C-alpha cells in the first residue's frame, strides 16, 4: 500500500514537472542575416576616409631653433638668440596670457621692420600659444599676438596689405617639454615670407 502510494506520488511528480517545464524554442543564432541592423545609420553606413596631406609638408621647418632649456625670463630677454622665424625675421615672445609687445622685444621688432622693407613678398605673421587654455580662446589669444606684431610693423611703415596674420593656437609648438622655458618659447609670433 505504501509502496503503491509512493509510486503513484513519484509518477504524478514526474508528470507535473514535465508539464511545468517551459518549452523554450531553441534560439537559432546562426540564422541571423549578414546585415540586419536597418535602424541605426552609424552602424550601417560606411563612412569615408580622406587624406589631405598637402600643407603640412610645406611649413614643417620653422627655421632655426635653439635649445629649449631657457627659462621664461631668458626668452623675454632682449639679448636672447632664440628664434623660430624664417627669412631673416625674428620671433617675438609673450608673457602668460599676454598679447602686448614688451619693451624687451623692441630690437627684434626693428629687425623685422628692416627685413620687411627689403622684401616685396607677402609676409605671414603666425601667432602661437603654449598648451594651456583650450578651444577657441587659445586661438584668439594667438591671433591677438599676431595682430600686435602687425600693428607694430604698420607703425614702422610696412604696408598693411603686404602682411597676413594667422593663429595656430597651441598646434605648433617648437618644444614639448613640460618646463617653464618650453612654455615660454611656444608663446610667440613667428614671421616668414609666404609661399
Amino acid at each position, binding site marked *: 500500500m505504501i509502496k503503491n502510494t509512493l509510486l503513484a506520488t513519484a509518477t504524478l511528480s514526474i508528470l507535473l514537472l514535465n508539464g511545468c517545464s*517551459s518549452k*523554450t524554442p*531553441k*534560439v537559432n*543564432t546562426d540564422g*541571423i*542575416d*549578414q*546585415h*540586419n*541592423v536597418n535602424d541605426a*545609420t*552609424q*552602424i*550601417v*553606413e*560606411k*563612412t*569615408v*576616409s*580622406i587624406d*589631405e*596631406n*598637402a*600643407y*603640412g609638408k610645406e*611649413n*614643417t621647418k620653422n627655421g632655426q631653433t635653439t635649445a629649449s632649456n631657457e627659462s621664461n625670463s631668458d626668452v623675454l630677454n632682449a639679448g636672447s638668440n632664440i628664434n623660430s622665424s624664417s627669412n631673416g625675421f625674428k620671433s617675438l615672445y609673450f608673457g*602668460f596670457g599676454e598679447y602686448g609687445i614688451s619693451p624687451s622685444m623692441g630690437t627684434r621688432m626693428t629687425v623685422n621692420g628692416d627685413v620687411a622693407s627689403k622684401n616685396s613678398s*607677402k609676409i*605671414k605673421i603666425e601667432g602661437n600659444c603654449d*598648451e*594651456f*587654455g*583650450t*578651444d*577657441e*580662446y587659445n*586661438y*584668439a*589669444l594667438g*591671433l*591677438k599676438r*599676431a*595682430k600686435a606684431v*602687425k600693428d607694430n610693423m604698420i607703425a614702422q611703415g610696412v604696408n598693411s596689405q603686404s602682411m*597676413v*596674420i*594667422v*593663429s*595656430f*593656437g597651441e*598646434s*605648433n*609648438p*617648437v618644444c614639448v617639454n*613640460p618646463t*617653464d622655458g618650453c*612654455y615660454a618659447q611656444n608663446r610667440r609670433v613667428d614671421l616668414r615670407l*609666404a609661399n
Partner: protein
Amino acid sequence: MKLLLFLLVSLYSYAVDATLKIEKDVEQRSRIAIVDTSPSQNSTFFKILLSDFKISGHFLADSKYNKGDINSNFIAPSLKSKEYIFQYHLTQQKGTKVMVRLLKASDGTEIFKKSYAIPTKNKMPFLAHKAVSDINNVLKYPDISWINRYVLFSRYTTPRQSEILLADYTFNYKKVIIKGGLNLFPKWADSTQKSFYYSAYGGLMPTLYKINIYTGKKEKIAMSEGMLVCSDVSKNGSKLLLTMAPNGQADIFEFNVANKVKKRITKFNGIDVNGKYIDDESRIVFVSNRLGYANIYKKSIGSAAVSQVVYHGRNNNAVDAFRDKIVYSSRESKKSFGSNQFNLYLTSSKGSNTRPITTTGTNQFPRFSTDGSVIQFIKHRGRGSSVGYINLISHQSILFPLSGRKIQSIDW
C-alpha cells in the same frame, strides 16, 4: 499643547516621507544582471554593456560576469534577486552577430528578443549601445538614444598636423575621417550626423568647409584671415555662429548658410569667441576677456547690450549651452604654468542655480548631449586623460581612458 504635538508629528512624518522618497528614487533603477552565452568571452563587449546600463541612469547593473545558455530560461538562484536578466550571444567570424534576450529574473519569462548583425567587426561597440538602447525603450524608460551617436573630434599629430576622427561615446571605436594638414574645430552640421563643418588651416587664410561623412563631398563655406571656427549650429541647420577675424580681431558672427550673409554680433576690441545659442536662439552665450580675463557673457543677437553670466573664477574659457542650461569650465588654481585645476559648473541663462559638477582634475571641453541630459568632458589627471560623462538626471558619471595624442576639439 495638542496642536503643538499634532504639528510636531506632522513635521516628523513629512521628514520621514522625504527620506523614504530619496531612497526610493535610487531604488527605482532596475537591477539587472548580464549573462554571457557566447562561445568565447569578449571582455570589451561586456564592459561596454556595463557602461551603457550604468550611464543610462535607469539600471543598476551587476558587474559580476555570469555565463549561461541563450536557449535557457533558467535563472540561477543567485540572480533571482534582480529584476531582469540580460543574455547575449556574441560571435565574430564574418562580421559581428549579437543575439540578445531580456528575461524576468523572477520566473525567466522572455520580455524581449532581438538579433543584430553587421558585416564588420570594428563597429561592435555600436551593437552593444543599440541593444541597451532598444531594451531601455522596451521597458519604456526615458530615451537614451544619445549612446548610439558618433562623437566627432580632432587631435594633433605632429606640429601643424592634425586628424579628425569619429568615435563611439566610449572611444572603443575610432576611425580617422580626415588626415593630413591642419584641420580643426569639427562641428556636426545636422542632428542626423551626416555632415560636419571644420576649419582648414592649410593655406594663407583659414577656410571653413562642410563635408559629408558618407560621400566625402566637400563644400567651401567661408574664409577669414586670422581665425575661423564654427562654434554652434542652429537647430534647423540654417544658421551658424562663427568666430571670425576679418580685420585680425576675433568676433562672433551669425552666418546664414543659404545666402552666405554674415551679421556681426560682438564688437569688443579684445577676444570674443565660443558663441553658443541659448533659450530660443535669439540670444547667445560666449567667452570674452572684456573685463581683463576670460569669462562668460550673454547677449541678444539683435541688441548691443552684453551681460555677465558668471561671477566667480578668474579664467572661465570654455562654455556650452542647451536651451537655458549653461555649462562652463572654470580655472580654480593660480599656477601660471603646469597643470591647473579646472572644474565644470552648471548654471542657467539667468545665472541662477550654479553648482559644480566636477571636483578634481583638469576638466575641459564641456559638451551637452543632443537632449541636454548628459554632459561630456575631457579630464586630465596626472599624466592620463579620460573622456567623461555626467548624467544630470541620475547623477551617474563614468570615465573612459583616452590614449594617444591631445584632443584639440570635440563635438557630440
